[in-house]
């Protein structure tokens, strides 16, 4: 897998990759590997500097981590995949490429391939356009944030962010870390944190976990997931970590930094039970409410979506991982959050479909089992409708533009906003640097409109103006 860091060879009109895979996490890596194995010429286009995505995030070699695999479940699978890809000359790895727009091609028309427009850095020349006959979107997911008073204090990090920093720079966000939110990531994060030497006084999980009881057959079909949970559980038990179910952090305290949190019990609708509050001292809070598929590149093209049991919007795909846009495939979290094993399987399935080969039975079986588990998990950890009750009017909902919840509520009640887009227009919530990735789900809930149709986004990430002004070279395989 040649890694291209230099200016890509340009000007090869008419020559293009058979497949461009966007994202080098589990789904993208598996797809690139399988597609090359089937003889396709593949561009693996990734925003990161090293393959692996968020899931297989690992320390830079310069850090000299002795055993990066210690922080990873599934490291062996990644190592195998990476080694296989490295030996595949048909795959060009294009790291550091942030794709800002995917211009749809016309299937079967060699003159009109897909064009992926990417930025590679701040300079005017750091622009790249990748040509391909088909595109696989494997851009993964980002974290769902549900705001609460004090969530912007230093020391409050996301559960995923805490894991990412640990995996990439071997650093901890604090010494005494409360882990809170909802979802299986909490156990994984807490387990990593205690392994790395942190004290975790409590894991605060908003659901009761009773949701899983309704899916016993699904659980029986996913023994690996149970074993994974049991391993985390056993490690946490050894370290005396307490799991508080049906509870939430409803406020973080501190002036310069978080020094304590208030935890309250929740009813079934996630409404805090009055009088149940108790304070836990800590110097960091890792909070996570699951993941939301990152699908802007596809929704901008009008791709059909489905809304999951947790309210998250994902791409609708058929049995061959095809989206509703001709020539665009999707795999992994973009089709609904379901974990690395599912992503690996879907990447392989998508590669076969693109190559016109029959789907392998093993991956089909994995997908069936894991999709069922993902649906169960999404339903079990769906935010309760009354979570907004703990968001006081002066709590900033949008951190980038510093828009408090009270302003969002006024836009709805007084100015006639009925959805997240109008709230954004009237309050600027979601107009800042992160473009609503952080506050989007919260604003949607506060505006009462639900997730709704995703807002079109002609640019999926910021682009230096000079790169828009000067069209760059187009690149296909060398």
């Amino acid at each position, binding site marked *: 897998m040649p890694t291209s860091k230099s200016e890509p060879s340009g000007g090869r009109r008419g020559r293009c990759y058979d497949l461009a895979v966007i994202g080098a996490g589990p789904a993208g890596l598996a797809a690139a590997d399988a597609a090359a194995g089937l003889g396709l010429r593949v561009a693996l286009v990734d925003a990161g500097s090293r393959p692996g995505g968020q899931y297989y995030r690992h320390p830079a070699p310069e850090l000299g981590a002795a055993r990066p695999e210690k922080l990873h479940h599934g490291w062996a699978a990644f190592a195998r995949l990476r080694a296989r890809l490295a030996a595949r000359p048909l795959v060009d790895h294009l790291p550091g490429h942030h794709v800002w727009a995917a211009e749809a091609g016309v299937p079967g028309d060699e003159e009109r391939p897909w064009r992926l427009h990417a930025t590679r850095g701040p300079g005017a020349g750091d622009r790249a356009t990748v040509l391909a006959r088909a595109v696989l979107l494997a851009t993964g997911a980002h974290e769902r944030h549900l705001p609460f008073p004090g969530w912007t204090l230093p020391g409050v990090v996301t559960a995923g962010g805490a894991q990412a920093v640990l995996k990439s720079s071997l650093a901890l966000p604090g010494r005494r870390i409360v882990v809170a939110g909802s979802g299986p990531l909490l156990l994984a994060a807490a387990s990593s944190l205690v392994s790395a030497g942190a004290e975790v006084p409590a894991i605060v999980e908003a659901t009761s976990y009773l949701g899983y009881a309704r899916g016993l057959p699904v659980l029986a079909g996913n023994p690996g997931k149970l074993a994974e949970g049991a391993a985390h559980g056993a490690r946490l038990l050894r370290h005396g970590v307490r799991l508080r179910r049906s509870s939430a952090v409803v406020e973080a305290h501190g002036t310069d930094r978080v020094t304590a949190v208030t935890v309250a019990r929740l009813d079934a609708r996630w409404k805090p039970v009055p009088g149940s509050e108790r304070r836990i001292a800590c110097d960091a809070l890792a909070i996570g409410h699951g993941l939301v598929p990152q699908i802007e590149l596809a929704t901008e093209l009008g791709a059909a979506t489905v809304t999951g049991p947790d309210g998250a919007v994902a791409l609708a795909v058929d049995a061959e991982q095809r989206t509703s846009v001709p020539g665009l495939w999707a795999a992994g979290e973009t089709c609904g959050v379901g974990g690395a094993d599912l992503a690996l399987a879907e990447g392989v399935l998508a590669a076969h479909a693109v190559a016109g080969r029959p789907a392998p039975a093993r991956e089909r079986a994995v997908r069936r089992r894991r999709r069922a588990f993902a649906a169960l998990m999404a339903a079990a950890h769906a935010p309760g409708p009354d979570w907004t009750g703990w968001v006081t009017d002066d709590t900033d909902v949008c951190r980038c533009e510093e828009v408090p919840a009270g302003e969002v509520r006024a836009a709805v009640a007084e100015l006639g906003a009925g959805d997240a887009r109008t709230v954004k227009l009237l309050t600027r919530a979601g107009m800042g640097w992160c473009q609503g990735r952080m506050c989007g789900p919260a604003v949607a809930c506060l505006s009462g409109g639900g997730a709704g149709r995703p807002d079109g986004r002609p640019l999926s990430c910021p682009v*230096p103006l000079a790169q828009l002004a000067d069209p760059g070279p187009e690149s296909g395989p060398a």
Partner: protein
Amino acid sequence: MLKRTPYDVVVVGAGVVGAACAYYAARSGLKVAVVDRGPVAGGTTGAGEGNLLVSDKEPGPELDLALLSTRLWRELAEEFGARVEYEPKGGLVVATRPAGTDLLHGLAAQQRAVGVEALPVAADELRTLEPHLAEGLPGGYLYPQDAQVQPALAAAHLLRASGADRYLGEAVTGLLRGPGGSVTGVVTGRRELAAPAVVNAAGTWGGELAALAGVRLPVLPRRGFVLVTEPLPRIVRHKVYAADYVADVASGSADLQSSAVVEGTPAGPVLIGASRERVGFDRTLDPGVLHRLAAQAAALFPVLRTVQVQRAYRGFRPYLPDHLPAIGPDARVPGLHHACGHEGAGIGLAPATGLLVSRRLLGEEPELDLAPFRPERFEGAERLEDAEGES
């Protein structure tokens, strides 16, 4: 719930034009309902830049409307002020070629004759007004009446101040009809709203609403993209655009027309706007359009080459074949009034439109002759439309 409510007028459309109609009608003492299939400012208004321009208009009915609106926006600014981010910042039109200055002199002379303030700016004065403007531009004109509002806030605050009952998220599916085919209200998925008058302020959807009344109003969409930079310190003080823009607005061509209108906003980002294409309601991004906008903005303000474009958005401007809006009662259908087809000038022209519509609702003499805006003026004009419509 099929309950008849005694309104004097039902306005269809909660964009800025519908909101202005509601505002002036309510101020005249009428009982108003506003209905929209989406939220407030959910259509073209929410995708607009908020240009209140006289500078880009040649003398004629649209400029008359714009001059009336300029006065009305000043009054409205007293009432709403900072809440709608009104900024009387003025427009600066620059020539990009020496020949362009002659064009600007000619246009400014005509505009001044009808009451537009236009001050010539010599080449060496340009950078006093706009310190970051490119060097070597041959000259331009300053238009102090040009101003800016934040369109969604303008629509929302006008609508709230009107006190009108809002029925948002309800699409109009039919019209109530009275004796002689008159329109006597609207039907939504949830209710009937009866009123002796219905105002069509449905923007790009205005043609469909007219069709519900059995009449033709050939409103067509004209697509536009706007680029939004990261928040910046105030480096652009006026609305600045190249002289080519004036020609583009009047163009009947289906090709891409773009010349960058560059301006700062109170929140910090610089807006770069005004691509114009006739591609129906096609939402597909054409990177070539973004390229032209960015290149022209960078040609006017080279410093912009060093900034990030944070996002882009698109909208569809509702236009009629002769590029004038439809304003006033429809002679073909008693009870039906129109206030749509403002193309890219709806934010600017909204107050005048609202005021004129309310005059006619009350049977009063309007401030302007509405003849050029007659909604039925396209009757028997199919051939003209074929020649000028989408290709």
